[in-house]
Every structure is written in C-alpha cells, then in structure tokens.
C-alpha cells in the first residue's frame, strides 16, 4: 500500500430502517460535494452481516470507496464493537472528516467515537461546508433552533459531525456506477460488547404520527381549562390534523404525554401549525423548528410564540377557536 493515500471523507453507514432513514445517502451526497472542493474521495463504512445490499446502494448513490466488514459477529448494531473497528481503521487511514447521521444510534455512538479519536464533534448539524484548505464548517442549531452556531475543529483530525436527517438531498441512484469495495476481515482482538441486547422489537407505531402530520393544532395553558382544551380536537379533525400540547398542559392532565411537542416531546414539521394560548417557552419552541406556516393566537401580542408566527392573532385563544370551528364548518366544501 502506498503511503500517500488520497484524502478521504468518511460516511458511517447507518443502514437500519433503510427505507425510512435515508440520512446515510444524504451524507454521501453532501460528502461528494465537499470532496470535490478538497480533492478527496468519499468512503462509506458498512459493518454488519449480509450487507451486500448496502454496498450496492451506497455505491449507486455516490460513494467512491466502501470499507465493508461482513461477519455474523456484527449482526446487530454495537457501539463498543464499532468503536474498536473505526478506531483501528481511522488510525491506519487518517480520514479528514467523518460524518454520521443524527439518528438515535448516531447521537449515542458519535460522541464516544470522537472521544476515542481525541477529536471534536458537532451535534445534529443542519449545514456543512468546507474551505479550500479543508476546514469543515459545521452549522449546528442551538437553543431550539432559534440560533445557529458555526463550529470548527481547528487542530484535530478527523473533523466529525452528526447531521440531522433531511438536511441534504440524496443523489439519485445509478446502479452502473462502480466503487472500490474493500472487504476487510474482522479484527482479531474485537472486544466483547459489555452491553448485552436482551430483546428488541420494531416498535409498532401508528402509521400516522404527529411527527408527520401536515396540520397540527397545538394548545397551551392559555386555553383556560381542560374542557376548552379538548375543543382543539374538533379543529384538528376538521383540518385532518393532530393535536399537540405544551408541557404544563400535559402535566395538568389536559393532554397525554404522547401529544407533548417540544424539547422533551415530539419534533414536528407540519405545513400548517396553529398555536393556541402558547407563550413560546423554549422547551416548546424547540420542537417547532420545521413548521412551515405558523398561526399563533394569544391575548398577549408580545408573547414569543406570536413573534415566531406568520400570522399572529391577538385575541382570546378559546374564543378564536370556537369562532374558527364555526366559520370553517360553514366554509369547508367536502
């Protein structure tokens, strides 16, 4: 092997939930763009058992090189084993950048990997760029997405980031494309995982979830009481949407925990969000980063939620709700 290896941008192959979770493909696409700027190659890592499908997919979606380890010992995801494997590979090959999807697994795994490699890591990035001399500019949200921070790892390599799914667009597949596929043996001294997976099952979530609803009607303490809050359901039904709630409302028992929207609850991305009687505490607004069109109703026009809105209606939330239901019933044509 030659000493002067080509510079490399690595993308961790997070293939679980492949058909819903396209973040690895999105990262390969972004890596291709970044690699052009610094004249590097894009290398996808795949560790698992019976992984040929992913080798083919990552090749078709733009990877130049695949580092694959296919072994029954890697049948299920394991933080500790992946750590040992990537530590080994990274020491041998010195990648410039390692990108990891900000899935639950990625968010748990990447921090340990960065620590193991004694380098920096930014979390849940929503933008990535690179300078001519190879400094990765990592744009990460802060304070519920109200602020963005541009983060760099100046002196340490590799530069690492986890990236929020949906940030970049995947490159359409091209099954004629070729990549260099390196099938590597499992390392001899692979550590035993100290965390034992006792049981797991794919959770049977309802197909329709608040996370993918296109209309959401959220309510807060400003609705007044539980009875008035329950009327939000009627508006949601009229609009084919879901009801969301703030933390105080959930704690007061007006809504189930499953309706909680915000930092501690669901992160939503509706096309239309109605926000009734919500002041806009950061714990709640943290979950609204992706809402397209926001209508806020609050007596107080100075409330944070009102300032975040496309349309701010300064009036009693419950009164507006009742009028809106009444008026929509008149106007909606089935």
């Amino acid at each position, binding site marked *: 092997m030659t000493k002067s290896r080509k510079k490399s941008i690595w993308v961790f192959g997070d293939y679980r939930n492949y058909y819903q979770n396209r973040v690895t493909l999105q990262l390969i696409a972004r890596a291709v763009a970044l690699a052009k700027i610094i004249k590097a190659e894009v290398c996808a890592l795949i560790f698992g058992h019976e992984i040929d499908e992913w080798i083919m997919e990552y090749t078709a979606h733009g990877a130049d090189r695949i580092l694959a380890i296919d072994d029954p010992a890697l049948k299920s995801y394991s933080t500790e084993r992946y750590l040992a494997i990537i530590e080994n590979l990274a020491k041998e090959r010195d990648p410039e950048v390692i990108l990891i999807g900000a899935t639950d697994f990625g968010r*748990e795994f*990447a921090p340990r990997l960065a620590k193991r490699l004694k380098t920096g890591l930014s979390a849940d990035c929503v933008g990535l760029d690179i300078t001519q001399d190879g400094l990765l500019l990592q744009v990460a949200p802060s304070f519920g997405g*109200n602020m963005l*921070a*541009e*983060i*760099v790892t100046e002196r340490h390599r590799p530069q690492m980031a986890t990236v929020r799914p949906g940030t970049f667009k995947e490159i359409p597949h091209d099954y004629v494309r070729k990549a260099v596929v390196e099938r590597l043996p499992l390392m001899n001294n692979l550590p035993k995982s100290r965390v034992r997976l006792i049981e797991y099952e794919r959770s049977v979530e309802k197909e329709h979830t608040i996370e993918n609803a296109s209309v959401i009607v959220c309510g807060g303490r400003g609705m007044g009481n539980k009875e008035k809050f329950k009327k939000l359901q009627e508006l949601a039904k009229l609009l084919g949407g879901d009801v969301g709630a703030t933390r105080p409302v959930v704690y007061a028992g007006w809504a189930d925990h499953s309706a909680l929207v915000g930092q501690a609850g669901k992160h939503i991305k509706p096309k239309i969000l109605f926000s009734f009687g919500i002041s806009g505490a950061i714990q709640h607004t943290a979950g609204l980063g992706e809402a397209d069109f926001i209508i806020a109703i609050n007596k107080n026009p100075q409330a944070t939620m009102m300032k975040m809105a*496309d349309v*701010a209606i300064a009036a009693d939330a419950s009164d507006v709700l009742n009028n809106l239901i009444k008026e929509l019933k008149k106007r909606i044509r089935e």
Partner: protein
Amino acid sequence: MLNLIVCLKQVPMVTELPWDEKTGTLRRDLADGMMNPACKHALEAALQIKENFSANIMAITMGPPAAEEVLREALALGADKAIMICDKLLAGSDTYATSLVLTAAIKKECPKFDLILCGAYTTDSETAQVGPQLAEELNLPAAAYVEKLEIHGRTLRARRLVDNFRETLEMEFPALVTVSMENYRPRYAGLAGLKEAFDENEIVILNAKALGLNASSIDKKGSRTKVRNVFLRKAQKGNVLLQGTASAVVTEFLDKYQRKIGTVIGKAIEEKNLDDEK
C-alpha cells in the same frame, strides 16, 4: 450500598439569550438558571433507586457560581453529597473538555461509583454528547435515552426506544445511562427541604487546580471544537398581526388564508356566496 452519581446542568430559563459576540458563547451570567429538565429526570431515577435499595447519591455540576442552585435542589430532594466544579478557566468548554473535567472530579470524589446518571440532553446546547463522552472517558458500558431502569444484584437492565426499536439492554456495574423524559417524572422539593439544603448541607467546591488541571493542560487536552460564529436563524416569517374581536379576526384570517389552508388539507374552503342563500 450502591453509589450513584447524577450529573446535573443548569440551563438558562429565558428565551432571549444574551450572547457574547466576541467569543460566540452564551453570557450565562446574564440569564436566570434552572435545572435542565432531562437532568431532573435523571435525578428522579436515582432517587427512585435509593427508595428501593441502600444507595448514596452524589450530585455533580460544572458551571458558574450560580449553578450551585441546582445542587441545593438536588440535596433538598435527597442527594447525599454535592460537588460543584467552578473555574473561569473552564468557561466555554465543549463536551470533550467537559467530560474530561467531570471525569477528574468523579475520580477524585467518588471513584468507587456503581452507576452514573445523566440527562439525555440539555435545552441549551442540545448536543447530548457529554453523557456518552463521559462513559468513553471512564471506559464504561453505557446506554442513552433510557426510559426505565431495573437493578438485579450487580446487573443493570435498561429499557429504551431508539430509532423505532424497543430495546432491553443489560450491563454490569459500573455503568452509565442517560435518562430520557418518558418516565421518571420529577418530584418537587418542599420548602422545608430546600431551606435545610441551603442551611446545612456542605457543597464541595472544586476548581481546575484542585482537579490537577492548569491552563496549559486544559488547552492541550481540552476543547476540540470552537464556535466561530453565532447567528439568528433567518426569520422568514411574515409576522402579520391581526387584532379585534374573535369573530372579526377569524373572518379576516380566513378571507386572507383560506386558500392556503385549503391547499394543504386538500379541500376547498370558500366564503359562502350570498347569492347561493337567496
């Protein structure tokens, strides 16, 4: 006797945050603080373990002097010991440095711990990185986003939901978990307990020097990342303000936006033509 450590962080309570434009970091000194919500859940998990087993809880935080409040709160709720790491040298630490400093404090004050509990994430920087990095620094088996804990002898069983998989994991002590906000609804401190915690309990205060860290070692071993720039997300919101009686604003609102809403819900929304009713 189980030795539990709970890592706590004070986060700003305000929504509009003062930033230091020069360093791109938050002026935490200007904001009111509170215990980070997920940290409260981690503390609650520890308190519930203590109710069922013989256990000691050490609460630890790193931050400006005001962060002492979260330790008082923890003591009032049932923590037995509190460690405060406070030093200007450590201001602006990233997660890499923070986990390094926490490790030094844990090795000094409670090296024989069984379980470390952290909140799964904080409401300010939201990296969710300190827990896993602390586990790495201390070479511990760990699980993030844990909803439920069980202890059988020296074995910890953790349940969690990650990436649509419901998992049950097991590991031996010593171990680390980050606790999600699904369960372990936090209890509140009574006034009497709070007062006692303020009057009686001692908080061990450690600075960088006490942890064997100095400016050059912090520089060499510390933060890997640097915030170059902080900016407000581009506000593209129309921010139209409607005021008036409820019925008037609803009419005005629908007249302006019913087409937009109709497109999204896939139904026509129209004002009834008066002629129709004649």
